[in-house]
């Protein structure tokens, strides 16, 4: 393996800037890596060598001409396949969109292109981002580079595995209930769900509009910060996008200081129900923070008990409506049934054939939750729970500057293990969902290998809305302490993948 691709993004941009390497060289190295390992890992649904190399060559030309370039110019990146791209098919992991090439670029994709970041390809995900393992992708699951028998998390298992297997230095993810953070947790990588509205959702194929947020996927905190700084900012095309800037995440990630910081441990998200190896790593991280001068306090969030229930009403309700547009009339799959093909029958046959089991399950759930007679009991109650969870967070942030918990109860499970048990699958997101319900930012960083399973574990850091910088400050400081003890980066513990092709 080329040593180049193992480097952090922050190092690579310096090499590009000093012209020690070219973007074409760097992009090609990642494409070569993909050719060698992605047959096993299956991070990508689409790889676009021509477009990526063309973009790389353009950056090299501009750099040679002495033009002013963006700090990350020339650094290649992978994009989750639920963001629209005009030069690559966009499927959202669904048969119903197979082969669809969008007519427009998502705002985030536009920003990446404007920054001169070559897009290597589109990464795998559970169909319409519904899942925690990528097993619900219509195009087959991605695998965890730490153990190919295991899941890389979901829905963004393509993006987590793509950076964990060194096929890309950075990737874009989206997080509706943990789809960035849970995959980061199981693959020993870093993932951030920014404050709701910090990054434009325009061009993100919606799962649940009030919960979805695009964010960075990386192998370390500073790299994630550099990427969030590229993609964040107000967008008039997304009326829920925040008008104000949240400042520089990269600056926050360089502070490496937690002295005097109040770190709240969420009572409901630790201890019982969490794998001993995960809890052990979590407690170790707390010790490190304490030793570095942070104050550890316990906070009580009693309404979190209802978070999953509320989430699995609000999400399907919004999704049932968001997914109604997949009707064969204007784009995507069209299935014409036998007999008289009325529009209703064509729509029904297309949706029957085009949607997978988890999508259908959630559409039915959401349709039911919004039905008259059910609305108040289900959707209405869930919205009330959402308010209560926001209040829990308000109270907790009165006592603490950031909150922490293990990112998930258990390290990566085996493919197929939970496929027939939706409820067990939903519980993977128990610690990540509250942040989406409250719109606050959250980050998962690796905190070592759980000794009972010998798989990556991670810690989640949460901050108040618009407090994304705090995540990067605390995350980078903790990462630094961990690496000092380990003597290397978390990703360097990962086993070597077999190289084929």
């Amino acid at each position: 393996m080329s040593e180049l691709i193992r480097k952090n993004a922050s190092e690579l941009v310096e090499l590009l800037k000093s012209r020690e390497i070219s973007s074409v060289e760097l992009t090609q190295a990642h494409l070569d890596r993909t050719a060698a390992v992605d047959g096993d890992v299956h991070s990508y649904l689409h790889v676009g060598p021509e477009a990526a190399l063309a973009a790389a060559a353009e950056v090299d030309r501009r750099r040679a001409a002495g033009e002013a370039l963006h700090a990350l110019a020339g650094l290649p990146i992978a994009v989750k396949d639920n963001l629209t791209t005009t030069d690559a098919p966009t499927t959202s992991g669904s048969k119903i969109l197979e082969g669809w090439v969008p007519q427009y670029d998502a705002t985030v994709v536009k920003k990446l292109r404007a920054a001169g970041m070559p897009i290597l390809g589109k990464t795998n995900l559970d169909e319409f981002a519904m899942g925690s393992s990528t097993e619900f992708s219509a195009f087959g699951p991605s695998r965890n580079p730490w153990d190919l028998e295991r899941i890389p998390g979901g829905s963004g298992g393509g993006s987590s595995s793509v950076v964990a297997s060194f096929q890309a230095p950075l990737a874009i993810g989206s997080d509706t209930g943990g789809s960035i953070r849970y995959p980061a947790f199981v693959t020993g990588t870093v993932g951030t769900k920014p404050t709701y509205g910090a990054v434009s959702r325009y061009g993100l194929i919606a799962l649940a509009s009030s919960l979805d947020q695009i964010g960075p996927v990386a192998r370390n905190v500073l790299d994630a910060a550099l990427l969030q700084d590229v993609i964040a900012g107000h967008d008039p095309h997304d009326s829920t996008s925040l008008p104000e800037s949240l400042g520089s995440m990269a600056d926050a990630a360089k502070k490496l200081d937690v002295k005097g910081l109040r770190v709240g441990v969420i009572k409901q998200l630790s201890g019982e129900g969490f794998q001993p190896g995960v809890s052990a790593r979590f407690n170790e991280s707390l010790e490190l923070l304490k030793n570095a001068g942070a104050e550890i306090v316990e906070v009580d969030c009693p309404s979190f008990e209802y978070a999953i229930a509320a989430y699995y009403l609000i999400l399907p309700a919004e999704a049932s409506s968001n997914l109604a547009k997949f009707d064969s009339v204007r784009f995507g799959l069209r299935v014409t049934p036998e007999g008289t093909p009325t529009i209703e029958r064509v729509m029904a046959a297309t949706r029957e054939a085009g949607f997978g089991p988890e999508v259908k399950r959630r559409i039915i759930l959401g349709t039911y939750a919004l039905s008259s007679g059910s609305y108040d009991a289900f959707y209405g109650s869930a919205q009330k729970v959402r308010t209560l969870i926001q209040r829990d967070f308000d109270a907790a942030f009165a006592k603490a500057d950031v909150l922490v918990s293990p990112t998930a109860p258990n390290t990566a499970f085996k493919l197929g293990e939970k496929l027939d048990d939706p409820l067990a699958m939903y519980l993977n997101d128990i610690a990540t969902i509250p942040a989406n319900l409250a719109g606050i930012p959250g980050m998962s960083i690796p905190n070592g290998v759980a000794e009972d399973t010998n798989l990556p574990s991670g810690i989640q850091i949460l901050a108040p809305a618009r407090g994304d910088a705090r995540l990067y400050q605390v995350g980078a400081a903790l990462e630094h302490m961990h690496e000092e003890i380990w003597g290397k980066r978390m990703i360097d513990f990962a086993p070597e993948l077999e190289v084929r092709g």
Partner: protein
Amino acid sequence: MAKDELMNYEKALEQFEVVIGLEVHVELNTNTKMFCGCRNEFGDEPNTNVCPICIGLPGSLPAVNKRAIESSISIGLALGCQIAPTGRFSRKNYFYPDLAKNFQTSQYDEPIAFEGSLEVEVPSGNTFTVAIERAHMEEDAGKLTHVGGSTGRIQGAEYSLVDYNRAGVPLVEIVTKPVYGAGAEAPELAAAYVRSIREIVKALGVSDAKMERGNVRCDANVSLRPHGQEKLGTRTETKNVNSLRSIERAVRYEIQRQAALLAKGTAIIQETRHWHEDKGATSSGRPKSDADDYRYFPEPDLVPVQPSKEWIEELRAKLPEQPAARRKRVQAEWGFADLEFRDVVNADLLDQIEETVSAGAKPQDARKWWTGELARIANSQDQNVTELPISGAQVAELAALIEAGKINDRLAREVLTYVLAGEGSPAEVVTARGLEVVSDDGALIAAIDAALAGQPDVLDAIREGRMQAAGAVIGAVMKAMKGSADAGRVRELLIEKANS
């Protein structure tokens, strides 16, 4: 279409109280659509004013058009409504191919304007206060054309074409509370109400307000109940009523149809009905019940609309005159008798006459042309007089030509037909076709002499004071000169000749 049994109208009113409710959709004339930057333009090539947002491509998001909100607030204020300090959009979920996202973004439980009222005068001169429940914003759907099949409806069509140019065009839906007590005048009230709404939105400049283009569309709810009964009867909602006349006819038809059914003890089915202008009847559409489940929920892609007090007051200060006040004012200015004025209002000609008068015509001349010859022409073509391709300025020009003696009434009528045929303004037509009256004495005297040659005793008769005898000569002169003679001058010349 099965023929409905109808009860005699007077008899129906003897037995039942009529309750109506009206939902008027006003298409706003903003430059761009409700949630995207596409042009809001009628009549463009199909599917040219579209983008990822209004055809609902995956990943696209709506952003509210501020101008549409401004127009909606103005409409609300003009209807005496309160304006909500905060209002959310909702999604109305149902599958239909003209609905790009398979949900309509609409205000549901939080309309921008609510609790207003409108004074409406019916042709008899009676005035009713119509209570407005709400005015809310929503987006229009695309336009479907069903090809094949006999009915033009989706059932039986071979295929259907969708034009998404209209998808996402901003609409304001104005909903009345139930209107009681109009009795026999309920159909007229329905039409007069819609007319008032049209006048308001036109005066506000927020809509082109052309019913024939669907800028203003009305759904009429009608229910009957026995006199004295508290509980409202089952209502029907008649759609597709595209002119004021149709509204009146459709309401009257539903009263008669429902009365006949109720008298037989048959229950009214709560349903949507379609109005057929050609047959003068409604037919059953799809059954509609309160159980229709649109699964409304707040639109998560849009933040609530929160108009500031300052903005609302700014718009209130810019409100134009109310229709009722305007009518009082113009009737006084024009000096029309009540009956004359009522004709003008009923023919929907206020704007035309105002334009004609402001272009210099005498009010009575303007009224005469619009309610007379032009109304007759429109009627003979089965058209609304307001839809004739002639402007108030052109009518004023015609009147001025008569005033100046350039043409007479007969010629003017001829000129009108050419103006309506698109040959140009009245003055242009007169010049191009040489239709000016002949008041050249030489030509007239020659024609008079020729006419007198056949009727030599006319001069004697005139000398004896029997002026009616002159008519035959004048008629002959007009005939000989194909109507282009100045009749007044002919008469003068004839008298001069008799007395010379």
